[in-house]
């Protein structure tokens, strides 16, 4: 696809702009900013990836992963501002999830240890982990507030912090996992996953595209479960002090 052809795709931006202006939705500014940002960010990533693939050096792959983790942490930490040390908890979770998934993929020779595979898969893993973290933290902080009386009741009866927070923790973990599990149930029926669609459009064999997509789906399921559970168990102790009191 040439840049000229791509520029014609901007018609798809003009339609929502026109609708927003006509219906006075006030979304023109945000739409323009989002469009410009996505063009700049994706083009920049494209050029960076071209350079990294050509250089084929481990340090560049590592730098890309560090950049992804930093951006994901920055984005997710706002949702867990009430949890002490949330930044490091997110970093540890993302690093662990990335190491686990890449370890399995490369260790079992499912994918080659090449930038062309490591970087896009890392992007999907860390991106998915970030979304899961945001969903988890959103629900967990809300649960803690709404179940404060129950948490203190369990503490007052001689329960430990882990026992007191158990229900909030399990509810938040479950709630954060529901979207991914539900979307996997209808995948291929309602929508074709973006990566698979991209491969097919680019001319790949559909069966091969499906095989790769399945690999990614299973990978993301692990990512989701590990992210929520790990973040949950890293976060809950900081809600209490050494006297087993629930902090404000």
């Amino acid at each position, binding site marked *: 696809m040439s840049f000229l052809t791509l520029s014609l795709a901007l018609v798809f931006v003009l339609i929502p702009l026109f609708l927003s202006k006509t219906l006075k939705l006030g979304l023109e500014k945000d739409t323009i900013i989002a469009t410009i940002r996505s063009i700049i960010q994706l083009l920049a990533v494209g050029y960076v990836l071209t350079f990294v693939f050509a250089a084929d050096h481990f340090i560049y792959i590592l730098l890309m992963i560090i950049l992804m983790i930093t951006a994901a942490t920055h984005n997710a930490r706002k949702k867990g501002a009430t949890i002490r040390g949330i930044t490091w908890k997110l970093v540890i979770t993302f690093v662990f999830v990335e190491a686990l998934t890449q370890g399995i993929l490369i260790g079992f020779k499912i994918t080659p240890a090449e930038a062309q595979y490591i970087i896009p898969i890392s992007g999907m893993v860390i991106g998915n982990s970030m979304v899961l973290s945001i969903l988890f933290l959103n629900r967990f902080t809300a649960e803690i507030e709404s179940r404060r*009386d*129950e948490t*203190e*009741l*369990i*503490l*007052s*009866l*001689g*329960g*430990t912090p882990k*026992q007191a927070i158990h229900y909030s923790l399990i509810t938040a973990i479950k709630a954060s996992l529901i979207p991914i599990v539900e979307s996997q149930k209808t995948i291929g029926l309602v929508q074709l996953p973006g990566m698979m669609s991209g491969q097919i459009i680019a001319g790949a064999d559909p069966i091969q595209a499906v095989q790769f997509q399945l690999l990614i789906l299973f990978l993301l399921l692990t990512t989701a479960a590990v992210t929520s559970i790990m973040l949950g168990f890293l976060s809950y102790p900081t809600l209490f002090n050494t*006297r*087993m*009191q*629930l902090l404000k």
Partner: protein
Amino acid sequence: MNQQIDKAIEFSQVSYYDGSLQILKNITGFFRKGKITTLVGPSGAGKTTLFRLCNGLISPTQGNITVNAKDINQYDPTELRRNVGLALQSATMLSGTVYDNLKLPRTLAGEMLTEEEAEILLTKVGLDKDMLKRKVTDLSGGQRQKVSIARTLVNRPEILLLDEITSSLDRVSRDDIEKLIERINKEFGVTIIWITHNLNQAIQIGDDTWVMMKGELVEYGPSSLLLEPKDQRVKQFVEGEIK
């Protein structure tokens, strides 16, 4: 003279701040072991905060608290909380049945509470034993309050903190609970500290009474002090001029 008295809980210049707001101001005093002490005072006096301190849900900002002559910080928090039982006015219930709630303290300790034991507890607090399998969402305010008391008793606490537990009960239920608490106190020597807005109850039930106002311990002594208060503010409170 104080040294000869057996003290269940003693406060020494205890203050508590919630952020920059001072809730308790320099509280010094004690609750006698094996006695019933009633705690009275207008709303916002800091009575419930005092209970939360005793149960170890919060710690004083300043001062010391001793439980059975041992610094509260020397206790393992779970041991302290099982020993100093707390039943709050809110009577928070976990979702599920009455039995689920009654066995909770034992479950937390990794132990079992049989249905028979639970039924005995229910009858003790004046509830029908058939209620064991009833969902807590189907209980009235008074029934919830009784289940909450029964649940606190499962731990067999040495000290029992009761926060307005009879305020939502009818007269008959209130009399039942008063008798039960008096029996627990007399038969098992459990120290009772009871927050109440009912001054007649405070006089009848209590051996001692604390009067708290705006975070301060204004007057304390035998419960009869409410009949002839020395402090002017207490006099106004007893006469209903301060709510």
